[in-house]
């Protein structure tokens, strides 16, 4: 297995990008990503591409990437693995380089969540992730999908609505100074608690916005990485985990076993543990999910997530800053792009030039969990000088 490095990373601002389709977002993202390569990279250097996209909002995904970006002479594979799509695309490209099959690969993630009417959007987006006969007709919409876990989690561990609100306040605060974030406003715990209710413990300010966006990474084999940069960021571990797809079959809903499996695989591959992580971008599609992630990723022991958020440890300046970009909650969540954009953030953190820089960050973790809370992907990156 060869070492794999990230040599370039770029993304467009997340938001309601009604004026741009995939055919605009993808070439812009690729140009930004190529421009980020310290010593430059020719488009022709790219030997294969993996495209993470959850919803086919504008037709055949791989073809649109190849066609709109001028990559007609390389293989392009679309990756779809629910909300774990982005980090799974990174994993697939990494394996192709590690195996020696290609030397330079492109990873792009993109989604347009606002290409369907507000009336139709719930049913359109549930169609790809719910059992057609059993769960789909019940209206198990995305926030309910997660809220059923968080309600149980709150019941078992005596988690209060204020703890959920603290996550929203922290991540919104981080997004204010991140120019590519979707929601760049400070909010207070009181505002989160007073916001209109959406589902169960989640109010409007506990939920990710529906974002459009795209993000890209350029990966190179260890031997060739130095052609592109003197400061490569290393892919040290990755993991993908699955779980039962129907909620009725999940034995303990206070945890996401998919996340536990993905994280264990990634830590083992990197030869490190959660205590070695300096900065993390985790899947906070709904506030309470970030708290559950703290426990599943090993940032604290079971039942201690409330202490971790209360202590301020996950703020920038804390022991383990989580979601310095603003996270899904405030940076935004175009599902196919989300995991790739997390890696863009970690890449910048480990090279010391992130918008909200975590001092001395040497190892970073990116994490998604999604679909019917049945899939998770984790990527561990390491700074150039470790």
């Amino acid at each position: 297995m060869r070492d794999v490095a990230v040599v370039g990373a770029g993304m467009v601002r997340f938001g309601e990008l009604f004026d741009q389709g995939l055919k605009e977002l993808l070439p812009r993202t690729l140009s930004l990503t190529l421009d980020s390569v310290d010593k430059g990279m020719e488009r022709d250097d790219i030997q294969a591409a993996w495209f993470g996209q959850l919803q086919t909002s504008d037709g055949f995904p791989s073809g649109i990437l190849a066609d709109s970006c001028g990559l007609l002479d390389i293989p392009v594979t679309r990756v779809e693995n629910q909300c774990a799509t982005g980090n799974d695309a990174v994993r697939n490209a990494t394996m192709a380089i590690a195996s020696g099959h290609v030397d330079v690969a492109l990873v792009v993630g993109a989604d347009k969540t606002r290409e369907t009417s507000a009336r139709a959007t719930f049913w359109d987006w549930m169609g790809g992730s719910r059992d057609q006969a059993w769960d789909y007709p019940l209206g198990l919409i995305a926030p309910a999908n997660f809220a059923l876990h968080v309600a149980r989690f709150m019941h078992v561990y005596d988690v209060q609505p204020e703890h959920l609100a603290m996550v929203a306040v922290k991540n919104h605060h981080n997004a204010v100074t991140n120019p590519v974030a979707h929601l760049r406003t400070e909010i207070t715990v009181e505002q989160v608690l007073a916001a209109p209710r959406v589902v169960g413990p989640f109010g409007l300010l506990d939920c990710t916005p529906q974002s459009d966006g795209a993000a890209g990474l350029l990966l190179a084999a260890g031997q060739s990485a130095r052609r592109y940069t003197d400061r490569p960021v290393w892919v040290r571990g990755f993991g993908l985990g699955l779980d039962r797809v129907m909620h009725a079959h999940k034995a303990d809903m206070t945890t996401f076993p998919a996340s536990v499996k993905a994280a264990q695989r990634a830590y083992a591959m990197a030869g490190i543990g959660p205590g070695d992580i300096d900065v993390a971008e985790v899947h906070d599609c709904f506030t309470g999910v970030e708290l559950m992630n703290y426990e599943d990723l090993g940032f604290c022991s079971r039942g201690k997530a409330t202490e971790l958020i209360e202590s301020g440890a996950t703020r920038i300046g804390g022991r383990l800053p989580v979601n310095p970009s603003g996270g899904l909650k405030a940076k935004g969540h175009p599902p196919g792009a989300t995991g790739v954009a997390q890696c863009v953030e970690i890449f910048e953190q480990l090279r010391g030039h992130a918008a909200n820089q975590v001092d001395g960050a040497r190892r970073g973790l990116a994490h998604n969990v999604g679909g019917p809370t049945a899939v998770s992907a984790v990527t561990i990156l390491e700074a150039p000088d470790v």
Partner: protein
Amino acid sequence: MTLLAIGRYEPTWQAEGHRVPGPDEDVVTMAVAAGLATITAAEGAPVDRVVLVTARPDVLEGFAGGVVALGLGLDQDLQVERRLGGAPATVAALLDAGPGCLVIGVDPQSPAGAAGALFGADGGAVLHSVGRVGRSLPMRVHRVDRPAFHRYDDRRLERDRGWLPALDRLSVEDAVIVGIPARDAVRLGGEGSGVAPSGAAAPLFGLSRLAAAGRDARLVALDAGEAAALEVEGAGQLRVHTEAREALARDDGPRLADDGIEIPIALPAYDRAVASKVGMVAARCVCGELSFPPRLRCMVCGSEEGMQASALPRDGRVYSAVTVHVPVPGVAGPYGLAIVALEGIDVRVLAHVTDRPGGAAAIDTPGRLVFRRIAVREGVSDYGYGFQPARENQEAVR
């Protein structure tokens, strides 16, 4: 041939003093609720035929008789005959019935209710035919191609030319008159039906009152097209079971904000699931593990052979639940979603919370799963189970 038992069902919701169906109820779910109450009253006496009478069918074509049979816990191939008509049609069905026949009358309109009557070979009460009068005074017309009723507004005409000539031929003093508003029945010298249903379910509600009073009497059923009468002998021998909960104001219940949406359906997926979903039947592996929904491969031992159908208990407790406040087109809201742990076995079920204002129920709330219409998808009624919290647990959670 004797009438063994009567089962009554009244929806939980109430508007303007009358029971009305909930957003997840229709003729089929009310028929199943009444049929199950009847089977309970009859202490499990066998059913080999079902006759469902209603003047207000939900669908003209596409009636799923097999769903009614499965909902009643009976064989899907059992004959379920649907008859169109009001109270006189139910009387006719009762007089036609043989042993093993379950006659169900359903009135989905206000005052809503449904009731069933199960016949056996002996025991119970005997019904005697008195006669039938054909009439033709269409005071109310509901055309299939128009949403509204046409009413001919002349109450004396209806009384003098409609009801009285029929009653002259069929009625006697102290008869129970059903099928018309209670106030009118009393004025005509009979006993009214109070706030009970006045259509196809009315004769059965009337019989249940006679059973409670232990009184043998004549029962006359009227509607615009006909009148029919029967006499009950041995009413005190009838067993009666009623499913009715303390009423909740329908205005406080879930509302369909936007029913213009077509929720997609995959009919092959529906077809594969329907027997298990409507019958609440799990697959039991040779190792003893229960799978619900049934699956090919056992979750525990990995066996792919030897699965047996296994009916599930209906009682359970909330493992987790949330209220969906945000409007979801096509779903009456706010609605509760609950994961219910069934009593005594390691099976959980995801279901809507039903018969409760404000959505969900708190974790650990006890209750039971009841047969309901989960959704209407591309015109197809999709049936399954809703979680009905026990009646002392009405407090809502967010």
